[in-house]
C-alpha cells in the first residue's frame, strides 16, 4: 500500500503544480479585492508564450530555454492580466464579466497568433523532451525516510518552485508591511486609503503578480506535461484552480493542501485498478471522485468562509 502511495505522490504533485500556481495567482488578486476568474485565460497565454519561447531558443541553440520560458510566461501573464486590471481598477468593471471577456480573448488570441507564427497551424510546433522539465531525485533529501520518497523523489523542479512560492507568498502576505496593506485592500479598501495606502497601486501590483503566477502556471503545465500548445492544452484547468483557491480558503497553505488533494484524487482514479475493493468500479467513478470528495470536504468544513470581504467590489475613492 505504502509503495502505491509512493508511486502516486509524485504524479499527484505533477498534476497539482499548475493548479497550485494558478490558485496562488488568484489568491493575490482576491486578497487585494479583485475577483479573478481569468486564471484560465491567463494560463493559456502563459502556456503559449512558454512554448513559443522554448521553440525560439531551441531553434537558435540557446541555453536555459525552459527557465527563460517561465520568466517570459510570468511577464506575459502579467501584461495580459492588465486588461482585466484596467477594467477592474479604473473602469469600475463587473469583475466577473471582465474576467469572462479575458478568458474568451485568450483562446482566440493564442490560436490566432499560432496561425500567424506557424504557417496557419492552430498549434505551436513540437519541442524536444530535453527542453521540458524532467523529474529527478533530490540528493540527500530524497533519502529521508517517508518524506523523502513522498516529496523529494521523482519531483519536478517546477513543483519545488511552486512550494517555494507558497512559502514566499505566505511570508509576503502575512509578515511584511506589503502583505498587511494588500490584505487591507481586499478587506476594506476605504480603510486602506484613509491610512494613506494607494489602493490603486496596491491592486495593480497584486494583479500583476496574479497574472504572472497564472502565466507561470500555464508554462509549468505545458513544460511538464506536453510538447506543444494547442487550444485544448489548458482545457478548463484554470477553473479548477479557482476551485482550488476557494477550497484552500484564500490562504497559501490552504491552496497547497487543496492543490495536492486535487492532484492526488485525479491520480487515484488511475491507480484504482491496483487497489482492492476499488478495482471493479467503472472508471468514470474515479474520474468523478476528486470532484465528489471536494464537495464532501467543502460541506464538512463549511460555515467559515475566509473570503476577502471586498473581493469583487468596485473601489471608489469617494464611496463612504
Amino acid at each position: 500500500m505504502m509503495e502505491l502511495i509512493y508511486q502516486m505522490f509524485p504524479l499527484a504533485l505533477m498534476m497539482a503544480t499548475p493548479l497550485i500556481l494558478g490558485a496562488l495567482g488568484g489568491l493575490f488578486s482576491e486578497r487585494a479585492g479583485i475577483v479573478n476568474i481569468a486564471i484560465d485565460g491567463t494560463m493559456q497565454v502563459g502556456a503559449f508564450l512558454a512554448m513559443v519561447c522554448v521553440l525560439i531558443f531551441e531553434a537558435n541553440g540557446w541555453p536555459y530555454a525552459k527557465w527563460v520560458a517561465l520568466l517570459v510566461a510570468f511577464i506575459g501573464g502579467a501584461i495580459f492580466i492588465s486588461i482585466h486590471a484596467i477594467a477592474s481598477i479604473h473602469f469600475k468593471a463587473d469583475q466577473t464579466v471582465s474576467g469572462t471577456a479575458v478568458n474568451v480573448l485568450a483562446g482566440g488570441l493564442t490560436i490566432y497568433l499560432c496561425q500567424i507564427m506557424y504557417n496557419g497551424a492552430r498549434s505551436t510546433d513540437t519541442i524536444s523532451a530535453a527542453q521540458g522539465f524532467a523529474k529527478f531525485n533530490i540528493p540527500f533529501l530524497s533519502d529521508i525516510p517517508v518524506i523523502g520518497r513522498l516529496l523529494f523523489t521523482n519531483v519536478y523542479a517546477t513543483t519545488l518552485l511552486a512550494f517555494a512560492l507558497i512559502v514566499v507568498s505566505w511570508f509576503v502576505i502575512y509578515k511584511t508591511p506589503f502583505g498587511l496593506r494588500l490584505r487591507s485592500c481586499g478587506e476594506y479598501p476605504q480603510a486602506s486609503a484613509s491610512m494613506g495606502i494607494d489602493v490603486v497601486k496596491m491592486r495593480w501590483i497584486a494583479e500583476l503578480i496574479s497574472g504572472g503566477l497564472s502565466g507561470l502556471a500555464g508554462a509549468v503545465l505545458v513544460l511538464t506535461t506536453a510538447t506543444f500548445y494547442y487550444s485544448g492544452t489548458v482545457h478548463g484547468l484554470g477553473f479548477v484552480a479557482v476551485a482550488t483557491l476557494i477550497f484552500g480558503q484564500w490562504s497559501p497553505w490552504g491552496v497547497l493542501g487543496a492543490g495536492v488533494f486535487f492532484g492526488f484524487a485525479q491520480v487515484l482514479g488511475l491507480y484504482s485498478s491496483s487497489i482492492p475493493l476499488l478495482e471493479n468500479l467503472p472508471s468514470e467513478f474515479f474520474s468523478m471522485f476528486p470532484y465528489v470528495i471536494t464537495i464532501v470536504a467543502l460541506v464538512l468544513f463549511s460555515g467559515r468562509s475566509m473570503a476577502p470581504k471586498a473581493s469583487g467590489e468596485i473601489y471608489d475613492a469617494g464611496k463612504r
Partner: protein
Amino acid sequence: MKKHSQLKISLVAVGVGFLFAFLVVIVAGRNPLNLLAAIIKSISGFNILRPNEPVTLVNTLNWLKYAVPITLTGLSVGFAYRTGLFNIGGEGQILVGGTAAAAVGLLVDLPPIIHPIVCLVAGALAGAVWGMVPGILKAYRKINEVVICIMMNYIGLYATSWFTRACLPIDPATNARTIDLKETAVLGKVFENVPSLFNWGFLVAIIGIVVFWFIMEKTTFGYSLRATGFNMEGARFAGMKVEKNVALSMMISGAFCGLAGAVLILGEFGYGRIQTSFDNFGFDGISVALVGGSNAIGILLSGLLFGLLKSASSNLQMMNIPKEVSELAQAVIIYLIAIQYVVILLLDKFHGKKDKKLISENTEKGDDQL
C-alpha cells in the same frame, strides 16, 4: 450622469466588437469584405460576393439553430444572476438534462407530441437537480456556489458517461453513443427540406424567454428573488425565505440548462451522447446573459447575436477568415459590457457636446429675438 439604457450600451459594445473584428482581419492581411460577406450570408443566406449564388434558408436557420441552446443557457445564467448567484455549472446541467431526455426518449413508449414534452420535462428536472446541489449548499451551508458548480460540471460529465453506458442501449456500430431515440420522442425539423437541423426546440427557447420575463418582472416570486439577489439580509428581514429562494433560483436556473441539453439531444442529435469533454454551451450562456443584462429581452437579443457569431464560423472559414476572429469580437463585446462605466462616460461626452450645441443654438435664437 445620464441614464443610458442597457440596450444602447450593448449596441455600442456590439458595434465596437465588429469594428475590432474588421481591424483584426485587415491586420492579418485578409480581405475585410469577406468578413462582411460571411456575416451577411450567415444572417440572410445572400452572398454579396457572389450575387448569383442561389439564396437558401439554410444559413438563417442555422443561425437560429445556434441561438436556441445558448439563449436557454443565457436564461439560466441570467436567472441565477438576478438572485445574486453565479451559475457556472451550466455544462453539467446540460449534460444531465440531455441524458435524462435521452433516457426517456429511449426507454419509454409514449405517443408523439407527448413524448418530447415528457423528455423535455425530464431534462429540466435533471438540470434542476444538478442546480439544486450548489443551490442548497449555498443556501443552507453558505458554500460558494462557484466551486460547487465547477465540481458538478465534472461530476456531470462522468456521471452521464457512466449512466449512458450502463443503462441505455448503446449503438453497437460505434459503442460510443446510444441507438437512435424513438421516433416519437424526436423534435422534428421545422423545414423538412432545408438541410439545417433547426427544429421545434426553438419553441422551448421562446417559452423560456416568456417564462423568465414573467417570473422575474411580474410575479411575487420574482420580486422576492430579486430582493434576495440585491440584499439577502434585507430580504430575510422582510420575512422572505431567503434560503428557499436561493435554492429554488439555482434549481430553476439548472432547469433552463437542462432544457438546453434536452433540446440539443431531441432536436439535433436524436441519440444519447457519451461525451469526454464539455461543449461549452454553458460558458457561452455566461456571455449571453452578461451582454443581455440578465433580462429576458436582452438575453433573446444577445442569444441571437452570439448565435450569429457561432453560425458565422463556418462561413468565415469558407471565406478564408480565421474563425478566431469571431472569438476576438466576442471578447471585445463582453469586455465593453464589463467596462460600461467608461462607455457611459463616452456616450455622455458625445451627448454633452450635442446638448451644448443645442443650448448655444437656443441662446443665439434668444439673442436674435432680443
